[in-house]
């Protein structure tokens, strides 16, 4: 995560006045919709608050500035979108280790000379569709292998993690591919209402993810399949088909994240997204989604992503060792899971 610190610091400084947007507007949602325990999200909000206070004490105005806020959000955006997809997978009782690699592969595919040439001739949207298509296809393959090949998700997506990275290296010859399509860059590197487009994308994906999980039959099926696959199957839910869709969705999210990564770094690289799967899983679990499946919370995931990003930001602003940061991160993961067990109602077995 530390490699992403300096980039993007000079975007999004134009219109002040809307500085409290994401943190302030979301708590209402969780109370109304997702069924996580209030105690847990409250704990996360407190943790986030504590980090913000820590940031203000140590960083002062540098931390509180609008610029810095946008930096945090932009960094949160890419991992955030991936984490939304992973939330669905984990809620369904599975795991996806391949999302980081798949994102890397999608950045490469969308930034090859061929794709960019077509995009220049037709429209920059071709690049977007390519990245999303590659992500969704990789996810589809994961899902088919898991659901119909009956390979455990851990192994199937581990294989995809290795293979997608290798495939990306093959295509690119391990070269970083610069994005040259002007329309693409100008669209995604723009601000709307003072907020960078990729942050908007993150918010949009999060909102759509929340709706999908809590308000649609797709979400209900995901929770049912994760909670008790046998009961879901005997109730007439097509469990295998549903799992394929869930993994495809996670792949699609990785594809969307790839578009955001392409615009932020203006390049495609086979090293993009390295270890993002672990950041995503950490954010999801810290957020309160049960690793065993059957309960998921998009709001918690967003909070989890923000906690880690604010933490990174505080450390960077204070020029602290990133190794120490990693240790703190580990402590947060363990702490959150311990908290989750304390709050979960069924400690009796």
């Amino acid at each position: 995560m530390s490699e992403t610190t300096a980039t993007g610091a000079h975007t999004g400084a134009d219109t002040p006045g809307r500085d409290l947007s994401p943190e302030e507007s979301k708590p209402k949602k969780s109370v109304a919709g997702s069924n996580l325990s209030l105690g847990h999200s409250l704990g996360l909000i407190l943790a986030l608050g504590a980090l913000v206070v820590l940031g203000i004490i140590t960083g002062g105005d540098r931390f509180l500035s609008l610029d810095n806020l946008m930096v945090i959000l932009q960094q949160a955006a890419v991992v955030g979108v991936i984490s939304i997809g992973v939330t669905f997978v984990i809620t369904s009782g599975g795991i996806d280790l391949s999302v980081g690699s798949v994102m890397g592969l999608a950045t490469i595919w969308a930034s090859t000379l061929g794709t960019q040439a077509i995009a220049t001739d037709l429209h920059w949207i071709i690049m977007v569709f390519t990245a999303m298509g590659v992500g969704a296809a990789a996810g589809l393959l994961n899902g088919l292998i898991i659901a119909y090949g009956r390979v455990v998700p851990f192994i199937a997506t581990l294989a995809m993690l290795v293979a997608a990275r290798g495939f990306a290296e093959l295509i690119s010859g391990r070269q970083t591919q610069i994005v040259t399509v002007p329309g693409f860059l100008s669209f995604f590197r723009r601000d709307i209402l003072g907020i960078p487009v990729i942050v908007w994308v993150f918010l949009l994906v999060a909102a759509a993810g929340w709706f999908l999980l809590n308000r649609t039959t797709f979400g209900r099926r995901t929770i049912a399949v994760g909670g008790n696959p046998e009961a879901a199957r005997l109730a007439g839910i097509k469990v295998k088909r549903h799992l394929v869709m869930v993994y495809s969705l996670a792949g699609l999210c990785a594809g969307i994240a790839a578009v955001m990564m392409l615009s932020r770094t203006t390049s495609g690289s086979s090293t993009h997204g390295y270890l993002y799967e672990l950041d995503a899983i950490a954010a999801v679990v810290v957020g309160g989604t049960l690793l065993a499946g059957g309960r998921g919370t998009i709001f918690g995931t967003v909070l989890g992503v923000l906690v880690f990003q604010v933490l990174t930001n505080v450390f960077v602003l204070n020029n602290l060792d990133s190794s120490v940061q990693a240790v703190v991160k580990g402590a947060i993961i363990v702490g959150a899971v311990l908290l989750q067990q304390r709050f979960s109602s069924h400690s009796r077995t």
Partner: protein
Amino acid sequence: MRDIVKHFPGAKALDGVDLDIRAGEVHCLLGQNGAGKSTLIKVLAGAHQPTSGQISWKGEPVTIPTTMAALRMGIATMYQELDVVDGLTVAENIFLGHELSSGGVLHRSAALEQTRELLQRLGHPEIPPQREVGRLSAAGKQIVSMARALSHEAQLIIMDEPSAVLDPEEVENLFRVVRSLRDQGVAVVYISHRLDEIRQIGDRITVLKDGRTAATSLTVTDTPTRELISLMTGHEVTSDFGGTASGPTSSDPLLEVDGLAIDGVFEPVTFDVRPGEIVGLAGLVGAGRSEILETVYGARRATAGEVRIKGKKLRRGSIASAVDQGVGLAPEERKSQGLLLDQPIYRNITLSTFARFGRSGLLNERAERAAAQKQAESLHLSPADVTPNIRTLSGGNQQKAMLARWLVHGCDVLLLDEPTRGVDVGARAEIYSLVRELSRQGTAVLMVSSEIEEVLGLADRILVVADGRVVHTGPSNDIDEHRVLDLVMEGAHT
């Protein structure tokens, strides 16, 4: 044990239990599901701590803080699920946790020697100490489990439904072992549902009901069965199956099963169920009853034959096809196969129908909740509120919720697998009358039950299944329990 009380958050599992056990007796513990038997033995085994009350051991008041402490005192427990490690040998299992060793080095030959002695004492010298436990039969595993208890020099052995996994002959063998233990001065607490077993093996009986002792230290020989049952249930038992069978309301079969089979699981079966008819599958556990039911539903893929609903053929191995045609299944293992335990009751009720309430993939939770609420009320689900997690409901109410799921769905054919397992007597009667009512309204019901009395009482026609074959088909009032058992035994041995 005196006046043991055990509280769990939200529920009182034990509410004043007295139990006193003498050396050299077989003390039977009776009670329905949820009466507190398991909790009581866990307290004795040191797995749970009582909230109040006093345990005395050989006249001294004691506390049993851990399971290890219980074992050191000489109290060993054999749990219902056999707690042996399949990958280890007999000797390794017996000395698991208290290996014979010095400085971390195992004394293998001493362990083998002692294992041989223990098996000898149990009357099973034929079990080789170095055999992997995974290769033994259930009965063999039980002997290993018992030998382990003895290896702790147990003076009190608690056996939680030891006969549940055994054949009749193996049960005889078990009884021999239990008797010889008793004659050696070991006290045995024997838990079982089967009254006839208790008659054979028990000396004294304690009956639990709703976490209290309903009666303690009754002598087996002086207590009539009727009294035991009324103590367990709190009222006299009447075989109320919700009135007499009304019979089919039409002669056109609703469900037709034609030559359905799975290779190596059950042989081709052919039968039909007409509207308003209840057909029961009787037989022993493992005879293939549930498998037939699950194959009709499409949960297992048939290798031959077909299933038709109103003449329309179902796709093999497709639950969706069965559900679309109005077939519903209330599975045998409610918790592991039927329910989402951490989800609200109403979501469990609408699990097969939630897509119907909304439009284009959106949910309409309000409508779902209302529909679930309506069913919950008409089935007298308690509590009537459908918001809490279904985990909080009793077994009987969970079963009603399962039925409510298919009532909301609107089923023509209802498949019931052990509909009253883990359901107390009061709720049983309600479930019986519910099934009757459904059948009167024209639903075709196909049910499986291990309780032959239940199948005979509820069904219009029965199919007796033994060893994967249907050995008898006929009206239920032409046959009695003994005849069914005879058929089952004959079928199993030919």
